[in-house]
């Protein structure tokens, strides 16, 4: 197999795996966080402002891990440094 095909196949497969596996953990965590926030909202509706603000900040923190995986897979798909390096080398020949 040519090296270009190996790089392309590896990047595409790893990009898919990175987003799909990276989304599992944050999805579970966000579900737990929202469920807990909802039950505490039902118990204490007076504290809704504080709970909502803390929930949003926490969700952003949790979500950022999924976003990192997405950024990695986007870089692999659209701005792959190894691919660009290989292309520039093969053009140089």
């Amino acid at each position, binding site marked *: 197999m040519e090296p270009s095909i190996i790089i392309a196949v590896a990047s595409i497969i790893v990009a898919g795996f990175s987003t799909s596996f990276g989304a599992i953990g944050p999805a579970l965590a966000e579900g737990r966080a929202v469920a807990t926030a909802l039950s505490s909202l039902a118990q204490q509706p007076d504290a809704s402002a504080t709970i909502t603000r803390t929930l*949003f900040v926490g969700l952003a*923190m949790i979500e950022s891990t999924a976003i990192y995986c997405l950024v990695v897979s986007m*870089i692999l798909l*659209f701005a792959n440094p190894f691919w660009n390096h290989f292309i520039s080398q093969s053009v140089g020949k």
Partner: protein
Amino acid sequence: MRLSPDSLIFWQHGLFKINATIAYTWLIMLLLSITSILISFKLSKEIKRSRWQNLLEIIVSKIKKQIEEVGLSEPKKYIGFIGTLFLFVAASSLFNIIPGYEPPTGSLSTTVALALCVFVAIPFFGIEEQGINNYLKSYVQPTFIMLPFNIISEISRTLALAVRLFGNMMSGSMIVGILLSITPLLFPILMTLLGLLTGMVQAYIFSILAAVYIAAATRVRKSGQSKKVTS
């Protein structure tokens, strides 16, 4: 497919180039400052006031209240910084409804610049509030062993701030771009709507996190003082 508006170049002369990020950043800055200057030209203290003044007052008082709820007791001092962050990020994602526009926050350089502003502002406000010695002492707060961890957390949260905003904005426009090639008509509109929502949430989160970090940097002295008073 473009990953960021950095690669869309409008004008280039030698090393100097004006890409979409710079152009749209300046456009938003001009728009925000010109509208606020025009509105604040004729402020009235009477009961009868223009609707634009009402709009500005609502925005400013809401931001002030949010800053106060985070724990900064003097919101007037911080509203210039945190409110500007919020308005810039919110406006840059709100203008997404205009065709041909790309949010400048979808480029990593813009978000890194914003996060670096927060990175500089935290010690600035902290030193201003509690003096340089007390601020530096907060790095070795529980024990001396925590010094590297405190520094690492300072850097990593700045990085997280930048990459979070970039990832959200970039993924929004990227998903619309991908969906346009699969289902051309209806779905991209819905995703744009979702993108507007996430843009607002991200603007809120960015400014709230900045406020929380500044509050954490300025609050240390008060707990230390109360400890001294009790002991």
